[in-house]
């Protein structure tokens, strides 16, 4: 049976494809590769902290490793993972379209991503930057390590996300199936729309500040050098104007995945479709008002600290509404406990815990003690790993039958999910306590009293690594030994399950005309 995988099987047909599904699969493979690269850096960092003194790497190597861990994980995994991977694959299908608005531009986005990744890898191999993923001047201007390739790599990757953003918004506006209003779209499309807004508004500002710091580092222009009239805080304002909404780029698509999985696995309409849709836009726009809470102790004026404190609180409200709506969706549903739902449970717990510690950090006086300590490291890992990575794994299992045509192994899936949850909590809960104790972040050396908790965290990181490896192996194994997947294994009413899995090249045998909403579980599912 002809589908998008075996339509043509030459390498060139894959490399020059304009089919959004193949581009999505290629993004998924590259992004998973970089997850492993970033993960290896993380494991070395954790090994280094087994003892307070030098353990396995020199201080210089350690500084480069935590910088690269941050850069690879943020720009090569978290930001492109769900929008470019699953978004490319499922957005056109969910809207009933044949392809994204600009297919050639979509392929260009993939190639720009690869070019950016190559420039980054060159930077990694050739004495990478040791400045932290935030590249603060004046240290970045005077460091003798080569920061320029890493900076240019991120700049190029930024363009890849901008192009994806333009593509998604135009697709949602112009290519919806006949009769599909905005309120009939699946919630994953809303999440992608929100993330694309942030990408379009935020990423160019990142592009500019990276070019400025390249001028500063490479040609000594002294843009932020106080001896030449500069002020490092101007850099921090422009950098965090992008970098805080960037964390919402990383969390909005996972929220879209969780909305889909909860509605399908609970076989019930979301408690309030409008609440989730409007809070997605709320997070997208209000997210830009809150960047100042990264600079409470950096010498910014107290007046600004007050403004940013109260604005940061408003973002937390939107996330909290979403969490209550997901939990409410389970009420009176018919809940299947499957691997994707196990991930959603860990997502719920970890996201609330991470989110609320975020609110705690936004209460200005607490941030003075916590800023730049391991408490903040634990907070954002609870969101990035606890929420985003968990949702990525949930999406991987939830849409595995649709993408590959094979079912994954349920037993191994649940085992992997539990290992990841235990490993994650084991790694980062001790770091909350170490942060409370006052251990600053990016520390090669730490005082002896923090050693016990650090050893516990390192042990947790091994369990987390084991869990991820188990998932990788079992999923690849299911490609060959997995049973054939029916078109709609979860009996879902969402549109992407109305087409055979794996879907044909033009997504739907005939142009679809959807009569029922994506979440009408009060109506029986007649065969497609």
């Amino acid at each position, binding site marked *: 049976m002809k589908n998008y995988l075996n339509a043509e099987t030459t390498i060139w047909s894959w490399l020059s494809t304009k089919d959004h599904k193949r581009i999505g699969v290629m993004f998924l493979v590259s992004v998973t590769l970089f997850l492993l690269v970033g993960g290896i850096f993380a494991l070395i960092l954790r090994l280094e902290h087994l003892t307070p003194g030098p353990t396995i790497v020199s201080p210089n190597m350690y500084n480069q490793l935590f910088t690269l861990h941050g850069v690879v994980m943020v720009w090569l995994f978290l930001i492109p993972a769900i929008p470019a991977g699953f978004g490319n694959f499922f957005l056109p299908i969910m809207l009933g379209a044949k392809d994204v608005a600009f297919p050639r531009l979509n392929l260009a986005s993939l190639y720009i991503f690869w070019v950016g990744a190559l420039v980054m890898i060159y930077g990694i191999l050739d004495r990478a930057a040791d400045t932290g993923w935030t590249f603060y001047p004046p240290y970045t201007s005077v460091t003798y390590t080569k920061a320029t390739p890493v900076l240019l790599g991120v700049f190029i990757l930024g363009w890849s996300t901008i192009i994806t953003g333009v593509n998604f918004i135009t697709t949602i506006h112009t290519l919806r199936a006949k009769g599909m209003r905005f309120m009939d779209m699946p919630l994953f499309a809303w999440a992608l729309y929100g993330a694309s807004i942030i990408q379009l508004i935020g990423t160019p500002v990142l592009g500019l500040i990276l070019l400025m710091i390249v001028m500063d580092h490479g040609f000594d222009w002294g843009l932020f050098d106080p001896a030449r009239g500069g002020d490092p805080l101007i850099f921090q*304002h*422009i950098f965090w*104007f992008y970098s805080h909404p960037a964390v919402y780029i990383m969390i909005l698509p996972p929220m879209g995945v969780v909305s889909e999985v909860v509605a399908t696995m609970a076989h019930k309409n979301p408690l309030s479709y409008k609440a989730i849709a409007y809070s997605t836009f709320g997070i997208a726009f209000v997210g830009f008002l809150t960047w100042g809470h990264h600079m409470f102790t950096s010498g*910014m*004026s*107290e007046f600004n600290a007050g403004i940013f404190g109260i604005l940061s609180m408003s973002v937390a409200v939107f996330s909290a509404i979403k969490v209550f709506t997901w939990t409410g969706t389970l009420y009176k549903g018919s809940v299947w406990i499957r691997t994707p739902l196990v991930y959603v449970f860990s997502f719920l717990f970890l996201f609330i815990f991470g989110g609320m510690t975020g609110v705690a950090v936004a209460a200005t006086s607490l941030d003075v003690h916590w800023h730049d300590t391991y408490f903040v490291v634990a907070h954002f890992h609870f969101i990035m790993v606890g929420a985003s990575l968990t949702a990525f794994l949930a999406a991987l299992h939830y849409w595995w039958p649709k993408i590959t045509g094979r079912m994954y192994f349920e037993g191994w899936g649940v085992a992997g999910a539990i290992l990841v949850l235990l490993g994650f909590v084991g790694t980062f809960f001790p770091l909350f306590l170490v942060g409370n104790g006052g251990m600053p972040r990016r520390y090669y050396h730490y005082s002896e009293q923090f050693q016990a908790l650090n050893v516990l965290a390192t042990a947790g990181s091994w369990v987390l690594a084991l869990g991820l490896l188990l998932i990788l192996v079992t999923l690849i194994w299911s490609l060959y030994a997995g049973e054939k997947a029916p078109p709609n294994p979860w009996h879902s009413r969402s549109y992407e399950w109305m087409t055979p899995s794996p879907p044909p090249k033009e997504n739907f045998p005939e142009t679809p005309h959807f009569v029922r909403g994506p979440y009408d579980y009060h109506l029986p599912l007649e065969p497609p």
Partner: protein
Amino acid sequence: MNEERSTLGTVLITYAALYLLVVANLVVALAGVSGIWALVVAMGIAGIQALVVALFSMELLRSRRSIGVVAVIAPLFVLLLVSLTVVDVYTRAPSPLEIPPIDRTVPSPPPSGITSTPSP
């Protein structure tokens, strides 16, 4: 998105207005308006010019609503970043000590308190 012809007349009137606004901006500056008013007037005129170009030359008036939303939101975020940074610089506490002026003529002698050699 109706593609009916944008008449030659509207194009010419638009650009006559724009040329006039440029001259107006120049005259105001040469007239010696200073201080906060100079900034307000200059940016005001530039804003009006941008609005005219966007509405008529970029045919925003005849485009669909979704394009109008984009054209409204982008400048708002430009304003957001610029204003909050400037507010931060203006509301910072005054420096507790004045910074000694930079004299680049000769490298300053070693600090006297610490290292002057003991008199033999």
